[in-house]
């Protein structure tokens, strides 16, 4: 008697578990049981486990009976003629979905010529064991798995044509690559996933060589000429939204050019781009601080009666303006109404992003890097035939990472580019390297892909032969323009009077605790004090009771709230944060007192 568990719950017993599981599987193939039900018999615990819950990873396998796959040539032909579809094969029990548990009890052949009588299943294609993104890596089977992982992760961040109607959409924070291309070295997943409809990179000429140390530590070097010709240009879109909100009492926001007497009026210059309706015009070039949508709101608190008047002097400015460090061109203006019937204005800002030092690029093999230098075309190394590489990749990135596929893609890309054809790099089913080498040799190149190259600055021939080939390179969405930040002075927080945090708030760069320790270790005590006095204040302290006293600027007189004005009051410099903690302690009914002592 074996126990049977359905989704982990005990449901009953069976006498012959093996037969039971076998029969149930037959029923599933027949269609009497759901396709997503999986069964397995565990000998050790003598239990049958049936799983039908959602959230299990299933994968399709071709059913094999007596060493023969149920999928025949006839089925394949029918599929090609589109007489049958994938789901027909599943309904007929030719292909079934197996979960991780059931897979443990299966014997799966990789290829049909490996089939024996013991096999229960056949792989649909070896590629099927990889996911979508990893399947897009060419020559993936030549790689270490961690690099394959990195390579597929990078592809998800690449710029491309994410939708073809992007011009009509108001997506937040999106990038579109100008002139994306299909890779020369493809996998079968490129065809399956309609890659030609949303390509995400460009084919470039890559030479593996160092260049004046500017491609150390995974940096890459770009050819200025290639950039000028449009390599890896992209557009960055970000919409701004303003809504005419309705407030209780019949007051509404107004989208317009604010009057000069509105509270918080910026400067006339900031509003210069607005048209009469208070909205900026398309193709206007904007910079930091410029107003995109002019808007005024009613006062926040209605205290006295005259604020009920519609006089503009009581209204407050609430325009949408360009944030710190941003710039661009107005791409699209949309005026509409939202669900509540309020006027809604959306303005999309476009910014052309030309590759610059600090932008992130990657090949499809987890070889990501940041642009370290942009070299004028005339100074780039060139080959005997006059080919100038677009990208110089450091050779030190190869040995430790062992990304053989990166090297093979270069050779394959070279062959493909010279022949004008696509190369198949589908994992486990690639165009063999030897064949590529022979083709390269036949075209008059060295079979190993290296070429004689010349120093672009001196014209001298390099002693070493340089490995050069064509690759598919992706521009990643991490661009310096979105990240660059520095500050000397700037906004502070209201509560602590310390600098704000983060780029968006033009924040300061923190000198953290460990950095503080280095100042102490050097004994640089006074420098340390200076570094931390961003929130220093001078406060009057009562020497009688030790509380913070009050200083009256008008009367130029200090007095203590507890001891009155007949007491010694001294001015002490301290950090505002410390004053704050004293106040917070008082709120907690802890009474901190300051005892003053002359420093000298």
């Amino acid at each position, binding site marked *: 008697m074996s126990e049977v568990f359905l989704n982990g719950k005990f449901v009953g017993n069976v006498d012959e578990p093996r037969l039971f599981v076998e029969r149930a599987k037959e029923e599933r193939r027949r269609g009497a049981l759901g396709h997503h039900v999986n069964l397995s018999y565990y000998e050790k615990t003598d239990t049958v486990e049936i799983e039908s819950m959602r959230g299990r990873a299933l994968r399709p396998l071709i059913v094999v009976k007596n060493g023969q796959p149920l999928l025949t040539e006839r089925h394949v032909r029918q599929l090609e003629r589109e007489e049958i579809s994938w789901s027909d094969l599943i309904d007929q029990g030719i292909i079934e979905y197996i979960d991780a548990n059931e897979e443990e009890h299966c014997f799966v052949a990789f290829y049909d010529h490996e089939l024996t009588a013991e096999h229960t299943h056949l792989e649909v294609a070896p590629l099927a064991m990889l996911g979508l993104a990893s399947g897009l890596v060419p020559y993936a089977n030549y790689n270490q798995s961690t690099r394959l992982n990195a390579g597929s992760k990078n592809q998800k961040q690449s710029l491309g044509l994410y939708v073809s109607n992007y011009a009509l959409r108001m997506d937040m924070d999106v990038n579109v690559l100008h002139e994306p291309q299909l890779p020369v070295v493809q996998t079968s997943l490129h065809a399956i996933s309609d890659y030609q409809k949303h390509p995400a990179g460009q084919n470039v000429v890559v030479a593996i060589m160092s260049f004046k140390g500017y491609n150390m530590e995974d940096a890459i070097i770009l050819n200025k000429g290639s950039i000028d010709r449009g390599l890896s240009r992209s557009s960055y879109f970000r919409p701004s939204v303003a809504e005419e909100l309705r407030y209780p009492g019949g007051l509404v926001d107004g989208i317009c050019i604010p009057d000069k007497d509105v509270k918080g009026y910026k400067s006339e210059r900031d509003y210069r781009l607005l048209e009469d309706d208070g909205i900026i015009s398309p193709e206007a070039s904007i910079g930091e601080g410029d107003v995109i949508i002019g808007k005024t709101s009613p006062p926040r608190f209605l205290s006295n009666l005259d604020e009920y008047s519609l006089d503009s002097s009581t209204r407050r400015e609430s325009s949408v303006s360009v944030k710190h460090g941003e710039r661009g061109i107005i791409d699209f203006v949309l005026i509409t109404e939202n669900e509540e019937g309020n006027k809604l204005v959306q303005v999309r800002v476009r910014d052309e992003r030309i590759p610059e030092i600090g932008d992130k690029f990657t090949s499809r093999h987890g070889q990501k890097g940041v642009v370290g230098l942009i070299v004028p075309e005339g100074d780039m190394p060139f080959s005997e035939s006059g080919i100038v590489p677009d990208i110089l990749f450091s050779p030190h990135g190869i040995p430790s990472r062992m990304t053989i596929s990166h090297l093979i893609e270069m050779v394959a890309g070279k062959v493909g580019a010279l022949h004008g054809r696509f190369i198949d790099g589908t994992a486990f089913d690639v165009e063999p390297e030897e064949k590529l080498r022979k083709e390269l040799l036949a075209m008059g190149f060295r079979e190993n892909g290296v070429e004689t190259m010349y120093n672009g600055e001196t014209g001298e021939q390099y002693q070493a032969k340089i490995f050069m080939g064509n690759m598919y390179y992706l521009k990643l969405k991490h661009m310096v323009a979105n990240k660059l930040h520095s500050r000397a002075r700037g906004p502070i927080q209201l509560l602590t009077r310390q600098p704000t945090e983060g780029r968006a708030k033009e924040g300061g760069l923190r000198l953290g605790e460990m950095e*503080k320790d280095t100042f102490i*270790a*050097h004994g640089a*005590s006074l420098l340390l004090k200076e570094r931390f006095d961003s929130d220093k204040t001078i406060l009057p302290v009562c020497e009688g009771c030790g509380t913070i006293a009050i200083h009256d600027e008008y009367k130029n007189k200090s007095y203590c709230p507890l001891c009155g004005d007949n007491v010694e009051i001294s001015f002490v*410099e301290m*950090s505002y944060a410390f004053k704050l*903690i004293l106040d917070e302690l008082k709120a907690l009914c*802890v009474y901190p007192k300051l*005892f003053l002592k002359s420093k000298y």
Partner: protein
Amino acid sequence: MAQETKLLPPKLAGEVLELVKGFSESKAKKVKEIVLQEYSHAQVEPGECVGIISAESIGEPGTQMTLNTFHFAGVAEMNVTMGLPRIIEILDGRSDISTPMMEIFLKNPYSKGKDIKEIALSIKETKLNEISDSFHIDIADKSIAIALNQEKMSELKVTQTMAINALKNGAKGYTLSQVKNGLLLKKKEKEENINVLYVDKEKFKQLHVSGVKGISQVLPVKRGEEYVIITSGTNLKDVFEMDFVDETRTMSNDVFEIAEVLGIEAARQAIINEVFKVIESQGLNVDIRHIMLVADTMCNLGLVKGITRYGVVSEKASVLARASFETPIRHIINAALIGEEDKLDSVVENVMINQPTPIGTGLPSLVVKVKE
């Protein structure tokens, strides 16, 4: 003449005096002067921030330390916690360390390998369940039958009387009788609850029969010319009482036990040795004086305190300094209850109130005498 040597630490002064024996007086004076000069050069400047420098000097290489514990596989060596976990364990001042261990050095005839196996076996603790085949509870009879394994007993050099003695002391409330191939324990009082019997049975299994308590494994190893016994589990006190043990060199890796048996100075040295051993084994290079400073702060109260909020941090004089390191509320409340005063004479407090810290350039101040 002795003026220079007075300023030197005693050990160094002795060495210098030894060195200048036979020198002419002027030459000896010159040597002493040079030594004194070198010595004062080697001293730390006033205001030098030794604590932070020690912390950084240990902490930075610590980031490179491998997190995984190395295991000495096989029989040759025992499994010892090393690496970062071990350092954390020592510096936190944990009293129950994960792999307690002793290195027992032996006195002369034994250190050459005499009766080494017998000696090792006599140290190892034998528990009752190691020499018995089964413990059987008879519910009806309210008794526990222990089947002794004669083979194992002779192997571990345990006699039946030893087992009986152990049970006589350990099994109170039972009458003991010898039966065929074993012992029978019968509950004296009528006990309704069988569970009690079961609990007792488990307790008897762990009864100490022979050897040194707490020592679960012994391993005689040859170190150069000498035989040493490595044990897992420590019990310095009992081991020191054995006459074949060289108590001057026998060591434990349990700092707390050393503090208890040998005193706080030995514990300080043990901390230094243990930490240094780990750092060395990782191939890192940390000056031993940094570790000495850490060991000093851990031991300067006469008992071993860990570098935790319950240990040395709780001994800090400043309320603000204590509050800035974990659980601030507790420290502030306690300080408020007794009206504690913070003299603001250390670093953290002064950083908090944005005043110069009394260290390095912040230490000296100018004193001017004002003319009246």
